[in-house]
Protein backbone atom coordinates (compact mmCIF):
# COMPACT_ATOMS: atom_id res chain seq x y z
CA UNK A 1 0.00 0.00 0.00
CA UNK A 2 1.36 3.42 -0.93
CA UNK A 3 -0.41 5.08 1.94
CA UNK A 4 2.54 7.14 3.14
CA UNK A 5 2.26 9.59 0.21
CA UNK A 6 -0.11 11.75 2.19
CA UNK A 7 -0.63 13.35 5.57
CA UNK A 8 -3.94 12.45 7.16
CA UNK A 9 -5.99 14.33 9.72
CA UNK A 10 -9.19 13.46 11.51
CA UNK A 11 -11.74 16.23 12.12
CA UNK A 12 -14.56 16.07 14.63
CA UNK A 13 -17.19 18.69 15.44
CA UNK A 14 -18.76 19.37 18.83
CA UNK A 15 -21.39 21.87 19.89
CA UNK A 16 -21.82 23.83 23.08
CA UNK A 17 -23.96 26.75 24.14
CA UNK A 18 -22.46 29.32 26.48
CA UNK A 19 -22.82 32.92 27.53
CA UNK A 20 -20.14 35.58 27.72
CA UNK A 21 -19.56 39.27 28.07
CA UNK A 22 -16.64 41.08 26.47
CA UNK A 23 -15.33 43.41 29.13
CA UNK A 24 -11.93 44.22 30.56
CA UNK A 25 -11.12 45.93 33.85
CA UNK A 26 -8.17 47.55 32.07
CA UNK A 27 -10.46 49.92 30.18
CA UNK A 28 -12.95 52.52 31.37
CA UNK A 29 -16.66 51.86 30.95
CA UNK A 30 -16.80 54.20 27.97
CA UNK A 31 -13.78 52.56 26.36
CA UNK A 32 -15.20 49.06 26.95
CA UNK A 33 -18.37 50.07 25.18
CA UNK A 34 -16.45 51.73 22.33
CA UNK A 35 -14.25 48.63 21.79
CA UNK A 36 -16.75 45.81 22.38
CA UNK A 37 -20.05 47.47 21.39
CA UNK A 38 -23.12 45.40 22.20
CA UNK A 39 -20.90 42.50 23.30
CA UNK A 40 -20.21 44.70 26.36
CA UNK A 41 -23.87 44.82 27.42
CA UNK A 42 -23.81 44.34 31.20
CA UNK A 43 -25.62 41.02 31.58
CA UNK A 44 -23.89 39.17 28.75
CA UNK A 45 -25.34 37.15 25.89
CA UNK A 46 -24.79 33.70 24.40
CA UNK A 47 -23.84 31.71 21.33
CA UNK A 48 -24.18 28.21 19.97
CA UNK A 49 -20.51 27.47 19.47
CA UNK A 50 -19.26 24.81 17.06
CA UNK A 51 -15.86 23.41 18.01
CA UNK A 52 -13.88 21.61 15.32
CA UNK A 53 -10.93 19.53 16.52
CA UNK A 54 -8.31 18.24 14.05
CA UNK A 55 -5.87 15.46 14.93
CA UNK A 56 -3.06 13.85 13.00
CA UNK A 57 -1.21 10.60 13.43
CA UNK A 58 -0.57 7.22 11.90
CA UNK A 59 -3.58 5.15 10.90
CA UNK A 60 -3.55 1.99 13.00
CA UNK A 61 -3.85 -0.82 10.40
CA UNK A 62 -5.85 -2.98 12.83
CA UNK A 63 -8.59 -0.38 13.29
CA UNK A 64 -8.22 1.94 10.30
CA UNK A 65 -8.24 4.85 12.73
CA UNK A 66 -5.94 7.69 13.77
CA UNK A 67 -7.75 7.72 17.10
CA UNK A 68 -10.84 6.00 18.42
CA UNK A 69 -13.71 8.50 18.36
CA UNK A 70 -15.03 7.18 21.66
CA UNK A 71 -11.71 8.16 23.31
CA UNK A 72 -11.69 11.58 21.65
CA UNK A 73 -15.34 12.25 22.50
CA UNK A 74 -14.77 11.32 26.15
CA UNK A 75 -11.63 13.50 26.34
CA UNK A 76 -13.35 16.54 24.83
CA UNK A 77 -16.38 16.00 27.04
CA UNK A 78 -14.23 15.83 30.16
CA UNK A 79 -11.84 18.67 29.39
CA UNK A 80 -14.08 21.12 27.55
CA UNK A 81 -17.78 20.43 27.16
CA UNK A 82 -18.56 19.53 30.78
CA UNK A 83 -17.23 22.89 31.93
CA UNK A 84 -18.30 25.05 28.98
CA UNK A 85 -21.68 23.79 27.79
CA UNK A 86 -24.59 25.74 29.29
CA UNK A 87 -22.25 27.82 31.39
CA UNK A 88 -21.04 31.38 31.58
CA UNK A 89 -17.52 31.58 30.18
CA UNK A 90 -16.76 34.65 32.32
CA UNK A 91 -18.06 33.22 35.58
CA UNK A 92 -17.54 29.49 35.28
CA UNK A 93 -14.19 29.10 33.48
CA UNK A 94 -11.21 30.17 35.55
CA UNK A 95 -9.13 31.20 32.52
CA UNK A 96 -11.64 33.94 31.69
CA UNK A 97 -11.66 35.61 35.10
CA UNK A 98 -8.79 37.75 33.80
CA UNK A 99 -8.86 37.23 30.06
CA UNK A 100 -11.64 38.51 27.79
CA UNK A 101 -13.63 35.50 26.50
CA UNK A 102 -13.36 36.39 22.83
CA UNK A 103 -13.44 33.42 20.50
CA UNK A 104 -9.72 34.02 19.80
CA UNK A 105 -8.96 33.46 23.49
CA UNK A 106 -11.43 30.58 23.59
CA UNK A 107 -9.49 28.84 20.78
CA UNK A 108 -6.23 29.22 22.70
CA UNK A 109 -7.77 27.95 25.95
CA UNK A 110 -9.40 24.93 24.29
CA UNK A 111 -6.18 24.12 22.39
CA UNK A 112 -4.33 24.18 25.72
CA UNK A 113 -6.87 21.82 27.27
CA UNK A 114 -6.83 19.34 24.38
CA UNK A 115 -3.16 19.31 23.42
CA UNK A 116 -2.35 16.44 25.78
CA UNK A 117 -4.81 14.05 24.12
CA UNK A 118 -2.76 10.86 24.45
CA UNK A 119 -3.69 9.01 21.24
CA UNK A 120 -2.90 11.50 18.44
CA UNK A 121 -1.36 14.92 17.79
CA UNK A 122 -3.65 17.92 18.11
CA UNK A 123 -3.21 19.92 14.88
CA UNK A 124 -5.67 22.74 15.44
CA UNK A 125 -8.97 23.86 16.86
CA UNK A 126 -11.45 25.92 14.91
CA UNK A 127 -14.42 27.55 16.59
CA UNK A 128 -17.48 28.97 14.93
CA UNK A 129 -19.03 31.60 17.15
CA UNK A 130 -21.87 32.12 14.68
CA UNK A 131 -22.42 30.91 11.15
CA UNK A 132 -20.51 34.00 10.00
CA UNK A 133 -17.53 34.12 12.36
CA UNK A 134 -14.92 31.44 12.84
CA UNK A 135 -11.48 31.36 14.44
CA UNK A 136 -8.60 28.89 14.30
CA UNK A 137 -5.59 28.20 16.48
CA UNK A 138 -2.84 25.69 15.74
CA UNK A 139 -0.60 26.35 18.71
CA UNK A 140 2.19 28.85 18.90
CA UNK A 141 4.71 27.36 16.46
CA UNK A 142 7.44 29.81 17.48
CA UNK A 143 6.98 28.78 21.10
CA UNK A 144 6.98 25.12 20.12
CA UNK A 145 10.26 25.54 18.26
CA UNK A 146 12.11 27.44 20.96
Amino acid at each position, binding site marked *: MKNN*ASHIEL*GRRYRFAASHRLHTAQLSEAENYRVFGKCNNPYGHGHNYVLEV*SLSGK*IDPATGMIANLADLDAFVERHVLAEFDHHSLNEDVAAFREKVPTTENLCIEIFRRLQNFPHAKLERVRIQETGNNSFEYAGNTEENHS
Partner: protein
Amino acid sequence: MVLLTRKIEFSASHRYHNPNFSAEENRRVFGKCNNPHGHGHNYTLEVTVAGEPDPVTGMVLDLKELKEILEREVMQRMDHRHLNYEVPELAGQIPTCENIAQVIWNLLEPKITQARLHRVRLYESPDLFADCYRNGASGARN
Protein backbone atom coordinates in the same frame (compact mmCIF):
# COMPACT_ATOMS: atom_id res chain seq x y z
CA MET B 1 -1.50 30.40 -5.65
CA VAL B 2 -5.27 29.95 -5.77
CA LEU B 3 -7.22 27.08 -4.24
CA LEU B 4 -10.28 25.69 -5.96
CA THR B 5 -12.71 23.22 -4.35
CA ARG B 6 -15.22 20.94 -5.96
CA LYS B 7 -17.77 19.05 -3.87
CA ILE B 8 -19.54 15.77 -4.67
CA GLU B 9 -21.75 13.45 -2.67
CA PHE B 10 -22.03 9.71 -2.73
CA SER B 11 -23.85 7.08 -0.69
CA ALA B 12 -22.25 3.84 0.39
CA SER B 13 -22.46 1.14 3.02
CA HIS B 14 -19.73 -0.29 5.19
CA ARG B 15 -18.93 -2.27 8.31
CA TYR B 16 -15.99 -2.05 10.71
CA HIS B 17 -14.71 -5.50 11.48
CA ASN B 18 -11.21 -6.90 11.96
CA PRO B 19 -11.08 -10.69 11.39
CA ASN B 20 -8.03 -10.86 13.70
CA PHE B 21 -10.07 -9.56 16.64
CA SER B 22 -12.46 -11.68 18.69
CA ALA B 23 -16.17 -10.88 18.47
CA GLU B 24 -15.94 -9.10 21.84
CA GLU B 25 -12.90 -7.10 20.77
CA ASN B 26 -14.60 -6.04 17.54
CA ARG B 27 -17.61 -4.83 19.50
CA ARG B 28 -15.51 -3.04 22.07
CA VAL B 29 -13.34 -1.22 19.51
CA PHE B 30 -15.91 -0.49 16.81
CA GLY B 31 -19.17 -0.29 18.77
CA LYS B 32 -22.29 -0.11 16.62
CA CYS B 33 -20.10 0.25 13.51
CA ASN B 34 -19.47 -3.48 13.97
CA ASN B 35 -23.15 -4.47 13.58
CA PRO B 36 -23.09 -7.58 11.38
CA HIS B 37 -25.03 -6.38 8.37
CA GLY B 38 -23.35 -2.99 8.01
CA HIS B 39 -24.86 0.44 7.66
CA GLY B 40 -24.47 3.39 5.34
CA HIS B 41 -23.72 7.08 5.02
CA ASN B 42 -24.16 9.97 2.65
CA TYR B 43 -20.54 10.95 2.15
CA THR B 44 -19.54 14.44 1.08
CA LEU B 45 -16.21 14.75 -0.66
CA GLU B 46 -14.44 18.10 -1.09
CA VAL B 47 -11.50 18.07 -3.45
CA THR B 48 -9.23 21.12 -3.35
CA VAL B 49 -6.62 21.80 -6.02
CA ALA B 50 -3.96 24.51 -6.04
CA GLY B 51 -2.48 26.43 -8.92
CA GLU B 52 -2.06 29.76 -10.68
CA PRO B 53 -4.96 30.94 -12.87
CA ASP B 54 -4.13 30.53 -16.57
CA PRO B 55 -3.61 34.06 -17.98
CA VAL B 56 -5.82 33.30 -20.99
CA THR B 57 -8.74 31.40 -19.39
CA GLY B 58 -8.51 32.73 -15.84
CA MET B 59 -8.88 29.17 -14.57
CA VAL B 60 -6.72 27.08 -12.25
CA LEU B 61 -8.03 24.03 -14.09
CA ASP B 62 -10.96 23.11 -16.26
CA LEU B 63 -13.77 22.24 -13.82
CA LYS B 64 -15.38 20.02 -16.41
CA GLU B 65 -12.26 17.86 -16.48
CA LEU B 66 -12.17 17.70 -12.65
CA LYS B 67 -15.83 16.75 -12.64
CA GLU B 68 -15.14 13.91 -15.08
CA ILE B 69 -12.18 12.66 -13.04
CA LEU B 70 -14.32 12.61 -9.88
CA GLU B 71 -17.12 10.82 -11.70
CA ARG B 72 -14.76 8.17 -13.06
CA GLU B 73 -12.48 7.65 -10.08
CA VAL B 74 -14.86 8.14 -7.15
CA MET B 75 -18.54 8.02 -8.13
CA GLN B 76 -18.32 4.96 -10.34
CA ARG B 77 -16.20 3.13 -7.76
CA MET B 78 -18.01 4.03 -4.56
CA ASP B 79 -21.48 5.48 -5.11
CA HIS B 80 -24.21 3.04 -4.03
CA ARG B 81 -21.58 0.39 -3.28
CA HIS B 82 -20.59 -1.61 -0.24
CA LEU B 83 -17.11 -0.32 0.61
CA ASN B 84 -15.98 -3.60 2.25
CA TYR B 85 -16.85 -5.82 -0.71
CA GLU B 86 -16.94 -3.75 -3.88
CA VAL B 87 -13.96 -1.39 -3.76
CA PRO B 88 -10.74 -3.35 -4.38
CA GLU B 89 -8.55 -0.42 -3.26
CA LEU B 90 -10.02 -0.80 0.24
CA ALA B 91 -9.54 -4.57 0.40
CA GLY B 92 -7.96 -5.63 3.68
CA GLN B 93 -8.51 -2.20 5.25
CA ILE B 94 -11.22 -1.07 7.67
CA PRO B 95 -13.25 1.42 5.59
CA THR B 96 -12.94 4.31 8.04
CA CYS B 97 -13.12 7.92 6.93
CA GLU B 98 -9.31 8.12 7.26
CA ASN B 99 -8.69 5.10 5.00
CA ILE B 100 -11.29 6.09 2.40
CA ALA B 101 -9.87 9.63 2.20
CA GLN B 102 -6.40 8.20 1.67
CA VAL B 103 -7.61 5.83 -1.05
CA ILE B 104 -9.34 8.74 -2.78
CA TRP B 105 -6.15 10.84 -2.51
CA ASN B 106 -4.14 8.01 -4.12
CA LEU B 107 -6.71 7.64 -6.90
CA LEU B 108 -6.91 11.35 -7.71
CA GLU B 109 -3.33 12.50 -7.23
CA PRO B 110 -1.92 10.99 -10.45
CA LYS B 111 -5.01 11.96 -12.48
CA ILE B 112 -5.03 15.69 -11.72
CA THR B 113 -2.34 17.09 -13.96
CA GLN B 114 -3.44 20.65 -14.76
CA ALA B 115 -3.13 21.70 -11.10
CA ARG B 116 -1.75 20.22 -7.89
CA LEU B 117 -4.01 18.24 -5.58
CA HIS B 118 -3.98 20.17 -2.29
CA ARG B 119 -6.51 18.51 -0.02
CA VAL B 120 -9.08 15.73 0.03
CA ARG B 121 -11.72 16.19 2.73
CA LEU B 122 -14.23 13.40 3.21
CA TYR B 123 -17.24 13.91 5.48
CA GLU B 124 -18.93 10.78 6.80
CA SER B 125 -21.41 13.01 8.62
CA PRO B 126 -21.48 16.77 9.24
CA ASP B 127 -19.56 16.17 12.50
CA LEU B 128 -16.90 13.72 11.33
CA PHE B 129 -14.40 14.09 8.52
CA ALA B 130 -10.88 13.19 7.44
CA ASP B 131 -8.45 15.52 5.66
CA CYS B 132 -5.70 14.22 3.44
CA TYR B 133 -2.76 16.43 2.43
CA ARG B 134 0.50 15.85 0.60
CA ASN B 135 2.99 14.24 2.91
CA GLY B 136 4.93 16.85 4.85
CA ALA B 137 2.12 19.39 4.49
CA SER B 138 -0.60 20.08 7.00
CA GLY B 139 -3.76 22.10 7.12
CA ALA B 140 -2.33 24.10 9.98
CA ARG B 141 0.76 25.22 8.14
CA ASN B 142 -0.67 25.89 4.68
